[in-house]
């Protein structure tokens, strides 16, 4: 073998040995380090955000919903990361409209994760993706939307940027509606495309909340409340609408309000849910409790005469309490209707501190109602042993010297409206989870009065809205209303020692229809400064407007026929009202037959036939649709032989 061949073989062997040695170094000696580097570059553990549950109103309208949006982040430790300055420049170029101040400072040494821009608009995400900025990654995040804007903002609350509930139902039910995140491990190729998913756990979506709140009712309440606050140049206001049959909260509003979609721009005053957080001295609305205590104890009857001492009463230490008018002898009914402080004090003193305190407690004053809203306050009900007779009893009997929230007061009135049952107010009616539905049933919180007492108190409170009462402006056409106005004097919190200020909480709380209650509505206006500040003047008209619209929306027919034809001597009936409201004309009545008896209904519309049969005192069973073609019993059948119901078969296109 020649020397040249030996040299060549030797060189090749050395080269091969060098390559092999390097391979051993990379693959064996430094396997751990390079393996970890490769895994970090190719693999990623992605958290899968759970969809946050939606919030629906009582009719299934979407009040809050979440949408998946893209967020961009950077990993400065990635090999392709170009450095902070070039990276930020590229991002700024791709997102010229976004405020990126502070982005540079977020890149602290050693950090592997830096948020670049969160919750991007779809167009922004597209531009960033097209820019293909090295080291930039995307993650999916959920963004909360409130499609109805500021509607029910205090009830719904809002979520922070991390999708954690911060106020309202979003906060209280956060654990329920947030869901549980999942994860997945993804292996990417050189271009960042996922090529393998070695493992994954799916996220668990959050539960949906269905509310008792009805968006349409809430809208009416907010619209009227907003206007009332503005017209009276008040500092704020609150309104509550309850269903007295269940304790369901149909609407709950506070003014000023805010848009939960941009809550950061709202001040604390806007974000405060006054209806459950603010407690104030209610004033005369609390006379309802004094009246209930007195009637339940058998101390007074509605027609008993009470001397109102010409409108002034002197308590111990020369404390004098006056009425608005110098009333003399008044029936207890009129004491309540005219809201005489003196008359109420005299009855309250007769009831006594212990009984009055017990009754207030039974109505839920001095403790939280337990409504499913955060930050509810209990109000202040001084313990009975601290009452200084007689003036504490005197003050409390007409609603001063204690404090309550709007919701507490409305709930107490709902107990009277509901015949004596106090419910725990409820905002959420149903929680729909992936594995089942939790129905929230009405929960009885107590029975503060007997049904008989409730009837008597109802009749007393009807007088408040009738001529001669303090709140005639609360009267709702076609419906009887029971309620009470209040003008509670407030202590100036900036100077408590100075006693009561000129600050008035003008309120009206009542229910309608009074004999078949569907709605309890409370309106409270804080410090009205434009004209008179009494509840009957400020809050009662708002009650009337709310009740009128809500009853129409709910399709509650007029039930108070007295207002229809007051000059007619005949006993008013709804039958007559209906005929007046829907004049049928001669062509809309059944044809009488010569032999008498049941008339001929053929050719009438279903509506005309139902009204006509109602006039005759007959029930009717309709079959089919259209106009009456056939009837049973036939026309001419003597009325005595007509059964309890008339059968009418309808056909299309046979109008008379």
């Amino acid at each position, binding site marked *: 073998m020649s020397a040249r061949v030996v040299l060549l073989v030797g060189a090749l062997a050395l080269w091969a040995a060098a390559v092999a040695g390097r391979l051993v170094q990379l693959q064996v000696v430094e396997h751990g380090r390079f393996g970890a580097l490769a895994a970090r570059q190719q693999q990623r553990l992605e958290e899968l955000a759970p969809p946050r549950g939606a919030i629906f109103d009582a009719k299934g*309208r*979407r*009040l809050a*919903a*979440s*949408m*998946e949006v893209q967020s961009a982040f950077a990993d400065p430790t990635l090999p392709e990361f170009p450095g902070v300055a070039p990276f930020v420049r590229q991002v700024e170029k791709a997102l010229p409209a976004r405020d990126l101040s502070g982005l540079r400072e977020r890149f602290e040494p050693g950090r592997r994760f830096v948020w670049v821009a969160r919750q991007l608009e779809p167009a922004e995400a597209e531009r960033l993706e097209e820019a293909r900025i090295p080291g930039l990654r995307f993650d*999916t995040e959920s963004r909360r*939307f409130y*499609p*109805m*804007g500021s*509607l029910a903002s205090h009830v719904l609350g809002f979520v922070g940027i991390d999708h954690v509930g911060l106020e309202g139902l979003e906060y209280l039910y956060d654990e329920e509606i947030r869901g549980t995140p999942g994860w997945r491990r993804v292996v990417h190729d050189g271009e960042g*495309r*996922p*090529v*393998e*998913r070695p493992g994954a756990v799916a996220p668990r979506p959050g539960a949906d909340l269905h509310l008792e709140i009805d*968006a349409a009712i*809430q*809208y009416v309440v907010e619209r009227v409340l907003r206007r009332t606050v503005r017209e009276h140049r008040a500092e704020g206001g609150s309104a509550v609408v309850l269903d007295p049959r269940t304790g369901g909260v149909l609407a709950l509003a506070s003014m000023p309000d805010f848009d939960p979609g941009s809550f950061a721009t709202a001040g604390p005053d806007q974000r405060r849910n006054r209806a459950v957080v603010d407690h104030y001295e209610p004033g005369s609305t609390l006379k309802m409790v004094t009246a209930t205590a007195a009637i339940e104890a058998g101390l007074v009857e509605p027609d008993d005469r009470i001397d109102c001492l010409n409108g002034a009463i002197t308590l111990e230490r020369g404390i004098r309490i006056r009425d608005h008018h110098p009333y003399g002898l008044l029936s207890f009914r009129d004491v309540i209707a005219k809201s005489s402080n003196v008359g109420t004090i005299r009855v309250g003193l007769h009831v006594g501190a212990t009984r009055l305190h017990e009754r207030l407690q039974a109505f839920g004053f001095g403790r939280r109602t337990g409504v499913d809203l955060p930050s509810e306050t209990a109000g202040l009900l001084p313990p009975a042993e601290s009452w200084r007779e007689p003036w504490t009893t005197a003050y409390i009997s007409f609603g001063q010297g204690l404090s309550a929230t709007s919701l507490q007061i409305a709930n107490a009135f709902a107990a009277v409206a509901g015949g004596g049952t106090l419910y725990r107010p409820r905002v959420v009616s149903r929680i729909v989870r992936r594995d089942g539905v939790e129905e929230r049933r009405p929960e009885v919180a107590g029975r503060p009065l007997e049904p008989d007492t409730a009837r008597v108190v109802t009749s007393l409170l009807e007088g408040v809205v009738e001529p001669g009462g303090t709140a005639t402006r609360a009267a709702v*056409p*076609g419906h009887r209303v029971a309620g009470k106005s209040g003008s509670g004097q407030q202590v100036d919190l900036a100077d408590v020692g100075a006693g009561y200020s000129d600050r008035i909480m003008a309120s009206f709380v009542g229910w309608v229809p009074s004999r078949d209650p569907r709605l309890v509505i409370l309106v409270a206006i804080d410090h009205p400064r434009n004209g008179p500040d009494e509840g009957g003047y400020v809050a009662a008209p708002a009650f009337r407007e709310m009740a*009128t*619209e809500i009853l*129409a929306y709910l*399709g*509650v*027919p*007029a*039930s108070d*026929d007295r*207002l*229809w034809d007051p000059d007619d001597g005949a*006993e008013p*009936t*709804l*039958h007559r*009202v*209906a*005929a*007046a*409201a*829907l004049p049928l004309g001669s062509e809309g*009545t*059944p044809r*009488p037959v010569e032999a*008498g*008896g049941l*008339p001929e209904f053929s050719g009438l519309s279903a509506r005309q036939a*139902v*009204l*006509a049969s*109602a*006039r*005759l*005192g*007959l029930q009717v069973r309709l079959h089919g649709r259209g106009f009456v073609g056939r009837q049973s019993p036939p026309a001419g059948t003597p*009325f*005595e032989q007509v059964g309890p119901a008339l059968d009418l078969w309808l056909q299309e296109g046979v109008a008379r």
Partner: protein
Amino acid sequence: MNTSYVVRRRVENEYLVRVRDRRWRRELGLVVLAVLPVALGLLLNIWAQLRVLQASYDIDALEQQLSELEDRRQQLEVTEASLSRPDRVRGLALELGMTLPREGDLVTAESLYAARSDSSPPGARREGGAPR
């Protein structure tokens, strides 16, 4: 003297005989037999890996599509909800000249019957025969 001669002789390499090497062919066959399955296996493996890769890309594209459709659905739900805002509906209703029901516009058959039975006995009304 000018002499030249040419010897022409046909060379016949009788000792070099082209024969078929049966052993070599057998060895080649054995090598092919040994290598072919390995090569085929490798090709199959590469093909399967490519298929997996392609399927992975397809899954990714489908997931992306699903996600986009889901996002679209959510967008539409939010849009639908914002279009049914009560203030918007009220504005449209007012534009169309709609008003709240007036007193007496709402009458239900149930209330008629209830009022009828409360106010006067049916017989009293029936005596007259003809409706009023």
